[in-house]
């Protein structure tokens, strides 16, 4: 897979990460935090919702321990992503630590659906992760520095991430041997969106999905 093909793969994430990163940077500058902290947070933490949460906690002067616990719980969903990547990363070199570090919702989605020949898979994965992080860093720094003065009305552009998840769901549905998990996830997602509190919706729904997947393994594998 050449660089152009890899870049094309990441364009939807770019369309989502740059405006979302800008929203993050803008919020950070409104809390009167110097812009370079936006840079450091996006380089080291690199978790969209985690960084927004950190800002909210900054604003309410939460303790550092509280910030650690809240971030851990919010990002616990990433454990499921890692679980799905164990065999994929198994034969990679030490560089896989960057892949693990950079396993955001969107990067996971791209890695899991991209069809890279095994020979250059590690390199392609590294590029995808790195490009995605660059978009996020650029967005957050630009937002922190000049989010207030940009004239372009980009309201709604973050919908590209929703559309990305829709498209990748269809791709995975076509790839997956079993189709029942798809319909179960539809029900759980809908149920979770309506009934679970928004901040906990993702982790609760994922736990429920994992639970149903394991407990009903037999009937999932029956039929199709």
């Amino acid at each position, binding site marked *: 897979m050449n660089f152009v093909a890899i870049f094309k793969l990441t364009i*939807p994430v770019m369309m989502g990460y740059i405006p979302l990163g800008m929203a993050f940077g803008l919020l950070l500058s409104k809390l009167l935090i110097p812009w370079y902290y936006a840079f450091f947070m996006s380089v080291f933490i690199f978790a969209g919702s985690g960084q927004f949460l950190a800002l909210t906690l*900054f604003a309410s002067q939460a303790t*550092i321990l509280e910030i650690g616990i809240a971030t851990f719980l919010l990002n616990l969903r990433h454990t499921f992503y890692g679980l799905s990547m164990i065999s994929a990363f198994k034969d990679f070199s030490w560089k896989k630590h960057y892949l693990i570090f950079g396993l955001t919702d969107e990067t996971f989605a791209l890695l899991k659906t991209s069809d890279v020949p095994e020979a250059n898979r590690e390199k392609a994965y590294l590029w995808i992760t790195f490009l995605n992080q660059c978009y996020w860093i650029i967005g957050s720094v630009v937002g922190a520095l000049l989010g207030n003065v940009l004239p372009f009305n980009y309201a709604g552009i973050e919908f590209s991430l929703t559309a990305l998840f829709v498209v990748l769901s269809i*791709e995975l549905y076509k790839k997956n041997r079993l189709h029942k998990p798809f319909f179960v996830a539809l029900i759980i997602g809908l149920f979770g969106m309506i009934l679970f509190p928004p901040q906990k919706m993702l982790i609760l729904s994922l736990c429920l*999905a994992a639970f149903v997947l*394991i407990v009903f*393994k037999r009937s999932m594998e029956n039929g199709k």
Partner: protein
Amino acid sequence: MESSYIIGSIIVATLATYATRIIPFLLFRTREPSPLIKYIELNMPLMIMVILVFYALKDVKWEAYPYGLAEIIGVCVAIALHVKFKNALLSIFIATLTYMILIQNVF
């Protein structure tokens, strides 16, 4: 806000985030994953992706005008285009454009 507070928080948040991502790799570093883990590995991504769609829609106000109509139309456009043309970039781009036009000019 003190810079030591911000820096300390960034370090802690970094470690907490990284921990959530590395846990499964540490657990299965030496042993071969069991059939159950392989089964989860095969089927969980599809479920995660579907749930992420709903997660992305979690802040929509369904009970007030315009009742999430822009989001529903946007998702339908993405599905229809993707089933018909199988071009991810096209589906995402047109769906996003549709959504932006709807929320900026219609609703």
